[in-house]
């Protein structure tokens, strides 16, 4: 039996280590170049250890496939499938979030530190202003946990948020037709920001956030329309005046600062009375359910708005 002779490999044929190590960025670039693969950058995609959080929900979860491929994230394009298809080149690491403004101890939180927070499972309903909804098992921690660390001043009345601007990694931020001005900005009143339902999410379905869902860190405010839950946050600023918010700036008649889910207050162009549950029912049996005041969280948050005219403060 002839002995196996290993083929001789010239050292010139061996891929240099730096090139070998950069293969991931090549894959990412290839995906961005139109292969349509959703390759998330670096070592970001990973399972997360969590503890059960408060706020149990008995509703059926929206399938992960739907949660991660039916998205509004205009930084990656305006179509629902765009964020999943166009976010392959986005790099969620390294990352840091600056928390500043009217605070005693401004601080820049690195991603490592953020991931060391006590991460909770938070399954919430998510209602888009367009009339569709999901049930998403988020992983995150209360926004108040971060706010406590920076010691807000008594004069701080609002919290302003800002999304990253990286046209080279976010194709929707480049090109001729910009649907919105960048950066995307959002805001909450201080009591809304400190409410225990309000979380910063770093994951969903047991893992770190996919790029298309707002990696590496996003806001989730479940009683407000989805666009309030700003994605890929780089800055949180405590301020005295009501901050600018992107959709209100874009069309103040249609989108207000509060944007609480409210079946009794229609969008000027469509009804908000019902919502379509994404990922259920399929083509011949679309599942429509009644929209609930404050998206079903009225017991928890209605008191924040007592005495306020919700028609005027939409």
């Amino acid at each position: 039996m002839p002995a196996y002779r290993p083929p001789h490999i010239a050292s010139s044929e061996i891929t240099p280590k730096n090139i070998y190590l950069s293969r991931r960025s090549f894959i990412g670039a290839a995906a961005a170049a139109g292969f349509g693969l959703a390759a998330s950058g670096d070592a970001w995609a990973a399972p997360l250890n969590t503890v059960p959080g408060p706020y149990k929900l008995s509703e059926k979860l929206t399938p992960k496939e739907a949660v991660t491929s039916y998205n509004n994230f205009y930084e990656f394009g305006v179509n629902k499938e765009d964020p999943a298809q166009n976010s392959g080149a986005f790099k969620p690491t390294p990352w840091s979030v600056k928390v500043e403004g009217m605070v005693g101890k401004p601080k820049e939180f690195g991603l490592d530190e953020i991931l060391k927070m006590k991460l909770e499972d938070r399954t919430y309903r998510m209602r888009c202003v367009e009339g569709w909804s999901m049930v998403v098992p988020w992983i995150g921690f209360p926004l108040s946990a971060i706010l406590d660390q920076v010691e807000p001043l008594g004069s701080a009345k609002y919290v302003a948020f800002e999304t990253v601007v990286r046209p080279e990694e976010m194709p929707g931020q480049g090109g001729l037709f910009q649907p919105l001005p960048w950066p995307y900005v959002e805001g909450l009143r201080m009591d809304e920001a400190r409410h225990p339902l309000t979380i910063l999410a770093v994951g969903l379905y047991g893992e770190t956030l996919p790029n298309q869902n707002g990696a590496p860190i996003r806001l989730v405010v479940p009683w407000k329309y989805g666009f309030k839950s700003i994605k890929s946050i780089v800055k949180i600023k405590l301020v005295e005046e009501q901050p600018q918010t992107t959709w209100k700036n874009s069309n103040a008649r249609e989108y207000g600062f509060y944007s609480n889910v409210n079946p009794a207050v229609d969008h000027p162009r469509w009804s908000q009375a019902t919502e379509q549950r994404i990922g259920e029912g399929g083509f011949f049996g679309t599942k429509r359910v009644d929209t609930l005041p404050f998206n079903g969280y009225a017991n928890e948050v209605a008191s924040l708005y007592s005495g306020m005219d919700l028609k005027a403060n939409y």
Partner: protein
Amino acid sequence: MASLAAAIPALPRRYHAASIWALYVVGLCPAAWYFYQAATGGLGFNPVKTFEHLLGIWALRLIIATLAITPLRDLFGINWVRYRRALGLLAFYYVLMHFSVYLLLDLQLNFAAVGGDIAKRPYITIGFAALLLLIPLAVTSNNWSIRKMGQGWIRLHKLIYLIAIGGAVHYVLAVKSVTSGPFTHIALIGILVAYRLIRRPLLNWKRARRQPAQAAR
């Protein structure tokens, strides 16, 4: 400009009828393909809305094609008038399918919601009005009506300009922000409708320019 017409080989007359029937078949292909995709999970996680929107966009494209027939002949000497009825009827079929999907699959015959939408939401009011206005055009699209109605037929079918503008407004009001896709469709409709305003003076000018040249010959 007539050189463009010369560059396109003329279709022998005996194939004209067949080419019109082929246009009907090809024109219905997008709807059939998207229906197949929607029913087999190929249109994503909101197949009803996606299918509904695609049908609407194709209806607008067919209206654009219908409106392009006259300027193609005026400006480039390409005579495709024989395809205009097919394009117009296809547009009507797509609008009808667009509305049916909304009625049957989206709102699932919740007539209260449909009525509320039509009464209260301007973009749906306009879209529905455009659908209603298309009906008399479709009904009178046969040769018998054309002969019978004479000048009245021409006047009636000028409604297509109103329908096209309605379709464009319906599209603008239905989207959250006007990006390149909606913009292209709306701009084309705007240009094609605006062309009708300058068409008379333009043709007169062209004729006036041609006549002295002929006289000199």
